[in-house]
Each structure stands twice: as C-alpha cells, then as structure tokens.
C-alpha cells in the first residue's frame, strides 16, 4: 500500500487568523504611524521655525561666548567660542563624575558592610543613614548642602581650619598646592620603578601560587617598597616638593588650590546620595553568598580575612557589579542637577547659559541628549567589560 504524500492542504484560513499576515500588517501599520507622526512633527517644525525666524544649524558654536565660567580645567575666557564653553562644561562634568564615583564607591562599600555588622548600634546607625538619604530627593539634599550648609559658613577671615593647611569658608574649599622643584623628577622615576617592580612581583607570586600553592604577601611588600623608595628619593634629592598653603591676604584667601563651593556641595550631595544606594547593592550582594560557603571555607581552615577575600567577595562581586553600574550611571545623570546650584557642568553651561543666549533650543537639547547618551553608553560598556571578566565561567 502506498501512501500518497500528504498534500500541503490549506484549510480556508482567514487572513486575520494567519499569524504571519497579522504580524506583517501590524508592523507595517506601526511604521506608517511612526512615519506619519514624524512627518507631522517635521512639517510643524519647519513652519514654526519659519514663523519664529529661527535659523537652524551649528554655526553658533563658533561665535564668541561672552560669559565667564567659574571653574574651568582648560584655559577659557569670555572671548572663547561656545564650543569651547561646552567643552569646559563637559570636562567639569567628567571631573564631578570621576570624583563622585570613586568617593561614593568607597563610602558605599563601608556603609554596606557596616549594615551587616554584628554591632547593633553600628548596623542601626548605618541603616538609618541609608533610609533617610534614599527617601528624600537628591535635589532637596543638594539645595540643602549648598544653601543651608556651605553659604552660611563664615567668610574668609574666620575660615574654618580643617587641619593640614585646608581651609573652608563661604568662598569654597582651599587646599595646599604641591610645587615640584628641580629634582622632583627623581621621585617620579622612583614611583614608576616601584609600580613596575610590583607588577612583576605580583605576576611571579601568582605563578608561584598556582604551582606550589604557597601565597606571597605581594601587597604588603609592594607597599613597603613603594613607601621606602619614595622616602629615599624624597630625602636624597633634598626634599624638592613643597606645599604652597593657602593664606589669608586682605579680604580673601590667596595661594593653594581653590575648590568652588558649588563643586563641594555637588560632590557632597551626589556622593552621600549615591553611597546610600551603593550600600544597599553591596549589602544584598554579600547576603546573596550562601552561609554554606562561609562555613565550608571556615572548615577548610581559612581565617576570617581569607574567607572574605577568597570566598565571599569574589562571589558577591558578581551580584554587585551590574547594579553598581546602574548607580554609576545614575550618578553621572544626576550630576545635571548642578544647574540648580549653579555649578558649571555641561548641562548648566550648554543647556542653561548657551541656550538662553542663543535660543537654539533644537540643536542644544539634541546635542545634550546625545552627549549624555554617549557618556552613559561609554560607562556601561566599561563596566560590562569588567563584568564579563569577573563573571562565572560555566562549561
């Protein structure tokens, strides 16, 4: 008996019951709808631009800015172009982001670990901090630090002396500036040499540990080596680094490095705020390592420090890194709140002042969004690379 090949029969399916037809129709309609919206928006835009006599284009970037910026890392004056002003702002944003990320990570890790402390007082205190900070808006905190803490500080004549030549008053934070005299290059060379030696030492120690199982105190030895060699170079070249301390002269402080109060308020607010979130991330990461891991490590005879370093932290880091990345991105995005207290970051300079002066809303808001998108993408790809490096390698 031969079986005729089953003919590909098509029972009468209505087109709206055919999933492929439905999907294609739906997507075509979606594309048409989006294109239609874009067309309407575009024609409105052209009409509005014509009626309001706005000329579009990026030509304005080359014109003279004509306003001053209170903090700039590169040379800038009122004759510089708008493009340069924007670049100054971008560098300021990067400065706040970099300083903020480092400090927030340190404080966040400390508080996150403190929340898990067996010391009830310490744990309660840190969780109180986390709850208080996390449940109030960052903007309120920033305005509070700026208006209620930094501005009412005494003037330069009654500056608060924070020790080590650091002065704080309502004009900002004044710190000693190191001056490198002749001979200080030897200290730099010594620093380079010790770093190089430490890397070699670390590689050798790792190879030896893999081969023989014996560990080697790399950190302690490198640290001692570095301190010793730097001291030696410092004294052998008759102390070429001197610190110029800020001093009161007349009505203001002269000398040293000046950090404007807006920067202090912004970094303080951002760091304390983000640290509370990082503390939660760290706490949940450590809690996620099961107790059996700690007990097994203890049963193997590892000491408390070793358990933390070799067993708990590496596993906790895998849980911590992705949300930590989000917190870094949040910090960078939140740094735009600088506009509320007048710190000249990219947003305040470009989207605030330049937009007010030129009225080129379209270009400026678009460029701002692109810049923050790029910064966000850059940070997240850096963290993804790090995450991929430490992620669990499964077979």
């Amino acid at each position: 008996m031969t079986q005729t090949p089953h003919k590909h029969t098509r029972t009468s399916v209505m087109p709206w019951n055919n999933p492929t037809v439905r999907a294609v129709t739906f997507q075509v309609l979606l594309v048409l709808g989006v294109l239609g919206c874009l067309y309407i928006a575009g024609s409105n835009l052209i009409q509005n631009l014509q009626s309001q006599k706005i000329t579009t284009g990026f030509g304005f970037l080359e014109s003279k800015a004509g306003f001053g910026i209170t903090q700039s890392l590169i040379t800038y004056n009122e004759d510089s172009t708008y493009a340069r002003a924007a670049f100054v702002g971008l560098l300021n944003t990067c400065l706040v982001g970099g300083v903020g990320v480092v400090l927030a990570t340190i404080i966040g890790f400390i508080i996150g670990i403190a929340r898990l402390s067996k010391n009830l007082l310490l744990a309660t205190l840190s969780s109180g901090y986390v709850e208080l900070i996390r449940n109030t808006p960052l903007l309120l905190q920033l305005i509070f630090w700026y208006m209620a803490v930094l501005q009412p500080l005494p003037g330069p004549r009654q500056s608060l002396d924070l020790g080590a030549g650091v002065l704080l008053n309502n004009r900002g934070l004044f710190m000693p500036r190191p001056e490198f005299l002749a001979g200080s290059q030897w200290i730099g060379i010594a620093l380079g040499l010790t770093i190089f030696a430490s890397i070699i030492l670390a590689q050798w120690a790792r190879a030896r540990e893999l081969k023989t199982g014996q560990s080697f105190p790399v950190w302690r030895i490198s640290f001692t080596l570095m301190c010793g060699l730097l001291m030696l170079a410092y004294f052998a070249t008759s102390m070429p680094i001197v610190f110029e301390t800020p001093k009161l002269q007349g009505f203001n402080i002269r000398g040293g490095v000046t950090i404007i109060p807006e920067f202090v308020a912004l970094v303080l607010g951002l760091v304390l705020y983000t640290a509370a979130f990082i503390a939660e991330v760290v706490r949940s990461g450590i809690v996620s390592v099961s107790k059996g891991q700690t007990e097994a490590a203890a049963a193997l005879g590892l000491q408390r420090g070793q358990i933390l370093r070799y067993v708990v932290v590496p596993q906790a880091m895998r849980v911590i890194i992705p949300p930590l990345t989000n917190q870094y991105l949040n910090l960078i995005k939140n740094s735009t709140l600088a506009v509320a207290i007048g710190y000249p970051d990219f947003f305040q300079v470009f989207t605030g002042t330049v937009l007010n002066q030129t009225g080129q809303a379209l270009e400026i808001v678009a460029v701002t969004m692109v810049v923050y998108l790029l910064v966000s993408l850059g940070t997240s790809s850096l963290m993804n690379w790090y995450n991929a490096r430490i992620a669990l390698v499964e077979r």
Partner: protein
Amino acid sequence: MAIAYVNTQLLPQQPPPRAAFGMVAWIRSTFFSSIANALLTLVCVWVLYRVIPPMVQFFITDAAWYGTTREDCIAAPHGACYPYLKARFWQFVYGFYPETERWRVNVTFFVAVALLAGLLIPKVPHKQWNALAFFIGLPLMGYILLSGWELIGLPIVGTHQWGGVLVTLVVASVGIVVSLPLGVVLALGRQSHMPIVRAFSIIFIEFWRGVPLITVLFMAKTMIPLFLPDALSPDQLLRAMVGVAFFTAAYLAEVVRGGLQAMPKGQFEGAKALGLNYPQMMGSVILPQALKTVIPGIVNSFIALFKDTSLLLIIGVFDFLLQVSVSLRDPNWASPTTMYTGFSFAALFYFLCCYGMSRYSKYMEYRLGAGQNR
C-alpha cells in the same frame, strides 16, 4: 563498711554563669566583643551624641512653637520656626489655588486615597472595578474637578495657579497611571517576535534610560512647542507630565521585562496548548504572575518618580519643593532658622511618602513570598 560516695539526690540546678547569659553578656558580645568593636561602639555613641541632642534642642526645646510673626522666631534664634510653617502650610499644600475652590482639590484627593486604599489592601474585594475606577474614572474626574468646567458651573483654574503638594501629587499620580500600562506594553514589545516592534521598543527604552530626566524636562519645555502646531500648545505642566511619564515608563519596562523573563517557559507553552491567543495568554496567564513578582521593583520606580517630581522646580513649575524654597526668600519670615525649618519640613514630607511606599513594597514582598518561604 562501705562509704556512700554516690549522691542519691539530684543537686539543685545552678543559674548559668553571669558572663554567658543575660543582659550583661549580650551587651558585651554585641558591643564590646573585641577592641575594634568597642572602638566602633564608642564612635557610634559619639556620633549619636553629636546628632540627637542638637536635633532635640532645635526641633523641640529651643523651637518657637507659638506666635504669628517673624519676631516670635527671632526670639528663639536656635530653634525651629514653627509659626512660619503654620502661616505657609496651606500654601505649601495648594499653591495659589483659589481659596474658595480648594474643596475640589480635597474631594479629588480623598476619592483618590479611597480608591488607592482599595487597590493596595489585599482584603478589599472588587479589585477589577476598583482598578477601572482608579485608572480611568479618577483621571477624568480629577481633570474636570481640578481644572474646572464652565458648563457644570466649575470656574476654570489654570495650571499656573496650581502649586505645592497638589502639583507634586498630580504629576506623580499621572506619571504612575500613564507609565504603568505604557511600561507593560513596551516590555511586551521588547520581548516580541516581530523585529520592527522589538526594535522600536528597544530604541524607545534605551533612549529614555540613557538621558537624564532634566534634559527630558528641558526638551518638554523648549523643544516640544516647536514640533506642535501653534493652535495646539499644551501648557507647561502637561508637557512636563508627559516627559515624566515616558521617562518612568522606560524604567518600568525594564522592571516588567525582568518579571517576564523570570516566567518559566512552561507557562507560555501551557497557555498556548490550551488554545489561548496572545492577548488571552498574556492577560490571563503571564502578566498576572509576572507583574506580581516585580511589585517591589515597580514600587521602587514609583518612589524614584515621586522624588524626581522635585526636578520640576528647575523648569519653573511650582511643585512642593519650589513652593517651599520660594517662601524661604520671603523677607516677612526672614529669621536665622526659617531656612532650616523649611528644608526639614520638605524632607519630612518626602521621607514620609517614600518611606511609606517602600514599607508597602516590603510588606508585599513578604506576602508574595509567603508561599515560597517555608
């Protein structure tokens, strides 16, 4: 004669050594188990000593409790200035909403609270009708009541007269009501098999997640009017609300996606095997389970949204925070502590709202996890 050296009677039980049990031992093991721990305890006590007594002095013992003018506050230079709060309280709540029309705000508020309580308390029945009223009825009623409708005798109150807690709550609740459905749709779109739908969803989500909210608000303020015809120019509050809602929707979409991805494949296959189509499968099988597992994440997004409403002050919308900070510049209330009082009050308001939400999310987490926790 044998000497009986075996005790035939049971000795009375001795109390445990004092060093191992009881209050003293607990204090010792918790606070002074080692030198480092003892030092930490001392540091904590020092911090508490530096924080608590000054706060008590500022807010209670040294505060100006009674009075009606700034002189009463200047008389108490080291304490909170409560007369200022008393004088400004209703402005903080309603902004510049006309006094005779404030009942409209109150009615809207109480209806919203009643509906929300019905939604949030698990024991209250008729959740579906309740949700329908909350997500569709309430916005309609709120719109008519708050901005007015001449036809039924309610005078128009323009949004420039709104302010304070009213604006904060309106923006936050419109944000929640709009962003939740939009976020769910975006999450479904991102999981969809249709390539164009997926691409659009991904672009939308990543765009809003990549830019700071403040640029979104600036876009709403300066760019959106250029894209709309002159005849159709929505007022600033509405534009800001749309921006906030889109922004939150993108974050919610990622939260919901987490819940969708956590669904076991069998749920999808089971629903399909029963012959359910896509809307039925998602609506009655997948989403109820997926949304349930991500309630804490959704609430966290709402907390963030609530805090972010304070950013409206940067584009000049009179939200609660702007209302407070503007009142601080009033020379009629200039006193050494007005600013600290105002900021503390603002912080307390935000803290109570956000902490309440986070407690609720903890409670739901506990309730939903009850089946899993043995």
